[in-house]
């Protein structure tokens, strides 16, 4: 396994991916705007994808790329559904504050 | 010849302006008799029985007119209308100048008849000589005790006031005369109320013509039956006719009513040599013409009305075949338009309009359409007016338009020179 590509050590990429992931995580936790939350989640997906691709490159095995592709696909589906939910919630409650929308709290 | 002398008795023979001469001829006898012996209602009754009709033009029965005065203690006035201005009339003029005492006696009798204590005589402004003569006569009568307070010792007061007009034809109309007498603008009043109810100064008033009043003297002298025996059934008594125009001897002729038109022309000397009669205007400027076919009609109120004209004030004007009827019509219309008081629209504007148009005809600048227009306008304005002046415009114009259209058509401008 190559430890560096074009002079960049692989763990740099790993670190980058993890930083991006945690930025996304923080956003997903801290923001109340569902759109921004979703985008943060996308950020986390991408961080994971980056890691996949880095490892695929490292092992020269495109299974990682395939996985990343599937992630992108599923992310698209997820985003579509999530946004649909946001729109429906907005129509229903006239607001999108996730803390205020608690109809399903039981 | 049926010429009589009732009012004209003595005129042209003796100086009747002299009270002494007048009294010699029984002057003021009837007046004294009336005041001393008769009640005023008896005088009224005699006037009524005589069938005397107003000689001023309208021919209204005098007794009936007097009887319209309402009972009551309001002062009453008698006004003698001596504003003779109808074209063709000159009888009152003559009476005033030649027999002033007769006129005055008539006024006094009339005033007594209606129970008035104040009589007025309204003398036309142009009758300067007549006014002077009558004034002198009045002074003489006053001096003789026929006018003034406590007449003949009976306690009856009667004052006579002379008023001179200022030369307006319309003041011959009784209400205009009253206005003029009051010092107002001489224009007819709106009737009702009639003068018998509210006349001079708002008091019951009778306005009578000079001739009418003058006949009272002879009626009282000879009795009403004497008067009623003459004339036709409804036009009784005598009348002075002022005959003028194309006759040899124009002048005033006193005749019984009912004399035929032909006789009247004969009385006045007949037509000039070689001339033929074209028309006669039997009742002054405001009457329509009568023609050859009417020559044998009796000259009285009814017959003249039947012939489409009227007897009016007895101004009998004769036209022979030299007459230019366009000029005649223009002359008469101009007179009426000029004399219109201007109060009411049809007379004021219609008269002036017709005058303008007729003037064009006289100058030979008539229009074809004017003939129909004149007929339409003149006939429509008749009957729309406050007084009779406006209605006087039509009759003569209409009758000559109808009878002699060729004279008018000859003055129509057929071609306009293309300038």
């Amino acid at each position, binding site marked *: 396994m190559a430890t560096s590509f074009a002079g960049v050590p692989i763990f740099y990429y790993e670190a980058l991916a993890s930083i991006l992931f945690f930025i996304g995580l923080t956003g997903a936790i801290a923001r109340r705007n569902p759109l921004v939350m979703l985008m943060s989640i996308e950020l986390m997906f991408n961080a994971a994808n980056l890691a996949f691709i880095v490892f695929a490159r490292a092992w020269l095995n495109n299974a990682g790329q395939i996985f990343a592709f599937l992630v992108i696909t599923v992310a698209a589906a997820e985003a579509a559904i999530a946004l649909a939910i946001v729109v429906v919630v907005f129509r229903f409650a006239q607001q999108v504050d996730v803390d205020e929308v608690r109809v399903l709290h039981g | 010849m049926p010429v009589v002398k009732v009012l004209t008795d003595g005129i042209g023979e003796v100086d009747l302006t002299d009270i002494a001469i007048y009294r010699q001829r029984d002057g003021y006898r009837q007046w004294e008799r009336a005041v001393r012996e008769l009640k005023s209602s008896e005088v009224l009754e005699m006037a009524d029985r005589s069938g005397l009709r107003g000689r001023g033009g309208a021919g209204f029965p005098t007794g009936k007119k007097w009887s319209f005065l309402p009972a009551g203690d309001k002062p009453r006035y008698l006004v003698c209308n001596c504003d003779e201005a109808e074209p063709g009339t000159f009888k009152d003029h003559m009476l005033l100048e030649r027999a002033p005492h007769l006129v005055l006696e008539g006024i006094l009798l009339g005033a007594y008849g209606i129970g008035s204590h104040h009589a007025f005589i309204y003398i036309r402004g142009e009758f300067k000589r007549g006014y002077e003569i009558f004034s002198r006569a009045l002074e003489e009568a006053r001096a003789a005790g026929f006018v003034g307070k406590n007449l003949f010792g009976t306690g009856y007061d009667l004052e006579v006031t002379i008023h001179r007009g200022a030369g307006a034809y319309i003041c011959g109309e009784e209400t205009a005369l009253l206005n003029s007498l009051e010092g107002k603008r001489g224009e007819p009043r709106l009737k009702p109320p009639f003068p018998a109810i509210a006349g001079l100064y708002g008091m019951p008033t009778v306005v009578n013509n000079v001739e009418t009043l003058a006949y009272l003297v002879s009626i009282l002298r000879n009795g009403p039956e004497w008067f009623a025996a003459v004339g036709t059934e409804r036009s009784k008594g005598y009348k002075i006719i002022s005959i003028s125009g194309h006759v040899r001897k124009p002048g005033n002729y006193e005749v019984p009513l009912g004399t035929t038109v032909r006789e009247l022309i004969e009385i006045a000397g007949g037509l000039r040599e070689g001339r033929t009669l074209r028309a006669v205007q039997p009742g002054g400027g405001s009457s329509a013409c009568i023609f050859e076919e009417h020559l044998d009609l009796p000259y009285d109120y009814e017959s003249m009305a039947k012939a489409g004209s009227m007897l009016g004030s007895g101004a009998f004007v004769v036209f022979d075949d030299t007459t230019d009827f366009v000029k005649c019509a223009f002359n008469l219309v101009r007179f009426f338009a*000029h004399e219109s*008081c201007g109060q009411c629209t049809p007379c004021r*504007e219609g008269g002036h309009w017709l005058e303008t148009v007729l003037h064009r005809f006289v100058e030979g600048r008539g229009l074809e359409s004017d003939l129909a*227009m004149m007929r339409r306008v003149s006939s429509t304005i008749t009957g729309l007016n406050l007084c009779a002046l406006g209605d006087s415009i039509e009759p003569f114009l209409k009758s000559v338009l109808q009878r002699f259209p060729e004279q008018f058509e000859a003055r129509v401008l057929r071609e306009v020179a293309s300038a």
Partner: protein
Amino acid sequence: MSSAPATSDLVNLTIDGVPVQVRKGTLLVEAAKLIKQEIPVYCYHTKLGPAGLCRVCLVEVEGMPKLQIGCNTPVAEGMVVRTRGESVEKGRAMVLELLLVNHPLDCPICDKGGECDLQDYAMAYGRGSSDLADPKTSKPKAVDLGPTIVLDEERCVVCQRCVRFDDLIAGERQLVLKDRGHRDMIATATGDPYRHNFTGNVTELCPVGALTSKTYRFKSRPWDLKRTETSCTQCSVGCRMNVDVRRETVLRTMSVEGDDAVSDWWLCDRGRYNVGYVDAPGRITQPLLRRDGTFVQIGWDDAFAIWAKAIRAALDARGPESIAALGGGRLTNEEAYLLARSMRELGAKNIDWRTGRQRQATPGSSGGTLLDLERAGAIVTVGESPAQLAPVMDLRVRKAVRHGARYIRVASHEAPPTMRHHDVPDVAAAAAAIPANVTRVALIWDGVDSTLARAAFAALERDGRTLLTYISGEQGNARGAEAMGVLPFSGPGYHVADTGRDFDGICADALAGKIDVLSIFGANPALNAADGARVRGALQAVGFLVVTELFMTETAKMATLVLPAAGAFEKSGSIVNLAGDVLPTAAALAPPGGVLSDFEIVAGLARALEIALPDTEEIERATIAAAAALPVGIAFGDERFAGTAKEPALGDGLRLRVTHHAFAGGGTLANDERIATLRPLPEAAFSRADAERLGIRTGDYVDLVGPGGTMHDLLAEVRESLAPGEVVTIAGLADAPANALAERSRVRVENVRHADALVEA
């Protein structure tokens, strides 16, 4: 109207197939109106009666051979009338054709075009064409009849309405018909300018555009005008009037047809023509504050704040005795009510409307209506007659005189009226002059001398006689102000309240330095008060003087704060006229920008003072109640109203008398340039004896010198009717204020300049 007519008085007839039942003696024109069937008329006028001149009102009466004129045909039982039909239409068309024969068709030029009876009837009944081929007659146009009226002779249809108005209604007989036939024309009989107090009515009567008002000539077309019906507030009669406005300018005023109760369908020239002030250049449009001797413009908020601050300071320092309010004659009832109420809310009782010479406006319980006046058998005036004070009331007097009433003037110093009159030296003589059979007597007082009024009342009161009293005051809504409680001793509805100081008292207090804030609402005491010198001194002594005005009047010039107020045409409300009728006024146009009505001004002050104001509905209710309240317990010449003015000491010289003139006054009258020619010159009238003694002839210029002042450059007039020992001047002239000298004081004549000498020089 008061009682249903008995059946015997009624006549049944048929008009155009419609059965009508009317009073006996009714004319066909009027009867046809009942079934809404128009009979065209020119010469006929409901108030003038028939004249039978125009001949356009033709109708067909069954059984009569000729067409009858509807205007002079009284109804008869069983009469069958047709106002339409071939012969009627033919006759009318002929008359209209004839009317148009010499009528110029300059309708586009003519002011009447659009509201012209001739236009209307020609359209409705005319032929539409004429056979006229000749040129129309040419007559003078724009003939100057007088200071108010221009005649177009070509347009005249000789209906003589104007002539008959002048004869029958105004009684002046100035207008006559001159010449005859188609040349006849309207003119003044003497050739002098047509001039009296009612000239304007002829322009309204004129069915065509022959008589036009100089103020309205070519100003507008009738269809452009916005019409508002309101009540005139120029004098205390309160005539109903139509105000025609265009481009934010009052262009003309017209009387209201059918207003029998108040104006009798007429207007006086003052009410009609004094409207040009609305957009006069001298109008104040912003609050002005005196700062270092000159006025500076300030905003309304500041004005209210400064005013309120001054009042608060005065209240805190010296209590409610130190503030006072004056005025009310120009205010509407609502404004007067709000003013009185606001003042009393502050605890202030120094409030009075009597800033002029008039002392009282409510005649007490014996007050009659204007219609009553018309029916009186005798009319007695004490003090000044209503001829100049309340001109339209004077028309009622004239009407009564025409109907046979005896008109008696007590110790009058005015020019003799053109109607039959009896001048008597004192009240007792007046009582004696009343015919024995007269049961209704009207007593008219100018509101000045209470003692005289009481004496007259006592002298004329008699068993079996109805005595009706009137006070023809000088201020428009004086009676309203009284009813609303703008009096020191009474509140709204004549309820007795704590007694404060009246006008004289306020002046005295001011001179003593006891008044800190004096607010004057629409009054001009500096010019109009009887004792001018004293009043001016008092106003100067006030610490903070507020004046609401339209113009910089004599009083406003002395103020600390001048507030621009809306004029009578710019506000709605109600007024009470001298007969006690409550009349609405309506705003005909909006006031100029920056100008508030007195109502808004009082309300703004109250808000700045944080006084609780009643809401609009309550004001309305209270105003109506107060205006309708019967003046119970108020006597004619009441002593409470009498005031404290003293008779000036006797001395040498002539006694000064002050009279009113309809067009003499400050403010709106002085600032209307359209009526400049109608304003009187300052004059002094002498009796013949005095004039001869002093060597004065009519037309000379003289000065009058009295205690405390001088009146300069008065035009002398020798008046036969005056008693020796008196000199009469006109009140309220800004050029020569009569109140420079105390009324009834003794004056000397000085500096006589002869007219001929002046001409030579």
